[in-house]
C-alpha cells in the first residue's frame, strides 16, 4: 500500500521536477530502475517496521488488504491520469 502511494508520488514528481529525474538517472543509471529499486526498498522497510511494531493484527488483515486494493487502484489511476493530461498537454 505504502509502496503504491510512494510510486505514484515519485513518478509524477519525477516528471514535474527534472532535478529529481536527473538524480534517479545519476544514482540508478535509469529513472525507471531507480523507481523500482526505491519501491522495493520501501516495501521491505515498511514490512519489517510493521512486524517490529506488532502491527500485524490478524483481525485487521482483511481491512488492510481491502485498503491496499483501493489505494493501488487509486495510485494506478493517478499515474494513468497524469500521463493522459501529459498527452493532452495540460501538464
Amino acid at each position, binding site marked *: 500500500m505504502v509502496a*503504491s502511494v510512494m510510486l505514484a508520488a515519485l513518478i509524477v514528481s519525477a516528471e514535474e521536477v527534472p532535478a529529481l529525474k536527473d538524480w534517479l538517472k545519476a544514482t540508478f543509471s535509469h529513472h525507471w530502475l531507480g523507481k523500482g529499486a526505491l519501491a522495493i526498498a520501501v516495501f521491505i522497510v515498511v514490512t519489517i517496521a510493521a512486524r517490529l511494531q506488532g502491527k500485524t493484527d*490478524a483481525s485487521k488483515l482483511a481491512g488492510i*488488504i481491502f485498503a491496499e486494493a483501493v489505494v493501488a487502484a487509486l495510485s*494506478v489511476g493517478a499515474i494513468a491520469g497524469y500521463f493522459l493530461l501529459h498527452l493532452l498537454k495540460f501538464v
Partner: protein
Amino acid sequence: MTPFLAAMLITHVIGGVIAIGIHNVALMHLLKKAPNYVFISRIAWAAVALYLISWATSAYYYVTYYGTAVKPRILAGALPAGHIFFMETKEHIFLVLPFLAISIALCASYLRTTPDDALRKSTAFLTLIALGVGAATAAAGIIVSGSV
C-alpha cells in the same frame, strides 16, 4: 534487435501474460465459499515469480534497447501517443504489479493455515485489481507494439 533482446522481450510478454492468467484462476477460486487455499497459494507464488521474471527481462530490454531504438520511431510515427501515454503509463503501473502479487500470495499462504471469510473476500478484491492492472498493462503493450 539481437536474439538475446528478442528472448528478453518474449520472456517479458509470455511471463506477464501467464501471470495475469494465474491471477484470473486465483480469483475464480477465491470466489468459492470454501476454496482450496493450498492450490491458490501455490499458483499465487508462481505469479509472483513470473511477474519478477517479466519485470527483470523488461527492465533489460527497456533500458538497453527501447529508449534508443523503439521510442524515437514511435514518436516520429503515426501514433506518438503509443509512447507518450501508453508506454509511459504501462512502464509505470507495471512497477506496482509485483507488490500486489506478493500481497496476494502472502494472504493465500496465511489463509492456508487460518481460513477467514473476510480475508478471502479482501484477497479476491485485491486479485481483481491486480488482474485489471495486469490486463491494462498487456493491452497497452499491444498498442505500443502496434505504434512502431
